[in-house]
């Protein structure tokens, strides 16, 4: 499938059903360099690098001794291009004035909403791939985790999550649903319901209810806390 970016380089609102898509795609479908990512989006390398820096294009990194390499998941790139909305700074004055006030307010809300779902999809991609480092970018450096799993309380650094996800390994069938996203200016809460957890630690067909608290930090939404309830089977 071609990404839907051809129409306008400045971006277009795509009210998309993200979840259906992430279920259909597997994380193995990767683009392995800036060149491939640029080719996939039919743009220059310089443009896609800028999109990563300024518009949250989901690009991941593998750390190596000499130089990091980048890669991207096709399904994340597609989700990003669907969700991509016009940034307020890109609206020209003429266009801005021609929009009714109500519309620009609701669009501002959607920009934040989409940015939050992009952050959450970074978490989901890591969970699905069984790669804790993949989801690191979704979290604030001081983020913490709390909750019970099989009667034992886990509270502490988010590093526990990264470790658990990596040890658990791939969970290709997880089905995440956004039960609720509530935004209060600089903070937000996301209730995520995840069915069909699997893996070495999760077992088979498990279910988790997660509550994430997010903070808008340096212009990006970052998870500051993950609170989970693991449903006993």
């Amino acid at each position, binding site marked *: 499938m071609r990404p839907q970016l051809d129409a306008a380089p400045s971006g277009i609102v795509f009210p998309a059903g993200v979840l259906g898509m992430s279920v259909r795609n597997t994380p193995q479908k990767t683009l392995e360099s800036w060149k491939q990512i640029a080719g996939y989006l039919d743009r220059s390398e310089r443009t896609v690098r800028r999109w990563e820096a300024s518009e949250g294009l989901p690009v991941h990194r593998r750390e190596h001794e000499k130089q990091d390499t980048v890669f991207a998941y096709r399904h994340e790139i597609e989700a990003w291009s669907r969700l991509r909305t016009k940034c307020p700074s890109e609206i020209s004055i003429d266009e801005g004035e021609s929009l009714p006030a109500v519309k620009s307010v609701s669009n501002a809300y959607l920009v934040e909403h989409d940015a939050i779902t992009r952050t959450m999809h970074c978490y989901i991609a890591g969970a699905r791939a069984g790669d804790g480092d993949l989801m690191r970018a979704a979290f604030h450096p001081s983020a*913490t985790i709390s909750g019970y799993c099989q009667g034992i*309380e886990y509270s502490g650094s988010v590093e526990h999550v990264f470790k658990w996800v990596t040890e658990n390994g791939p969970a290709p069938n997880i089905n995440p649903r956004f039960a609720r996203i509530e935004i209060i*200016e600089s*903070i937000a*809460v996301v209730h995520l319901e995840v069915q069909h957890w699997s893996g070495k630690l999760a077992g088979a067909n498990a279910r988790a209810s997660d509550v994430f608290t997010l903070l808008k930090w340096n212009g990006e939404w970052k998870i*500051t806390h993950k*609170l989970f309830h693991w449903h006993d089977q």
Partner: protein
Amino acid sequence: MTKSEYLTEYDGIVKTMQMYIDGSKQGKSELMRPAFHPDASFFGYAGEQLAIGTPFLFDWIDKNGPASKIEPRVVSVDILGSIAVVRLEVAGWSGKLAGSDARMSDLFTLLKMPSGWTIIQKAFHWHA
């Protein structure tokens, strides 16, 4: 969860939140400390500065002093088994640090411990 179970949990959560409200109103962090989990976190912007960690909160409450006219509203309480989210809107904040008639929106997440519901995080937005 049956209706009476839900009400029991709801009451437990509101009781914990009341400790936070009492501490805020009287400007005494000692009143709210028992409501917080030992590993609780605290996040939000105080002006331009990012405030992190419950020591910041407790220190702020003590330095702010009494805020007798705060109007707390519990906007929502969501219970998901052993965890809960409370949205609290507090108008009429006053005190040495809060100024006068300020407003704060809070998102509290709570964890049900053997000893009862405890606050595991407070995230706040201070309305300028």
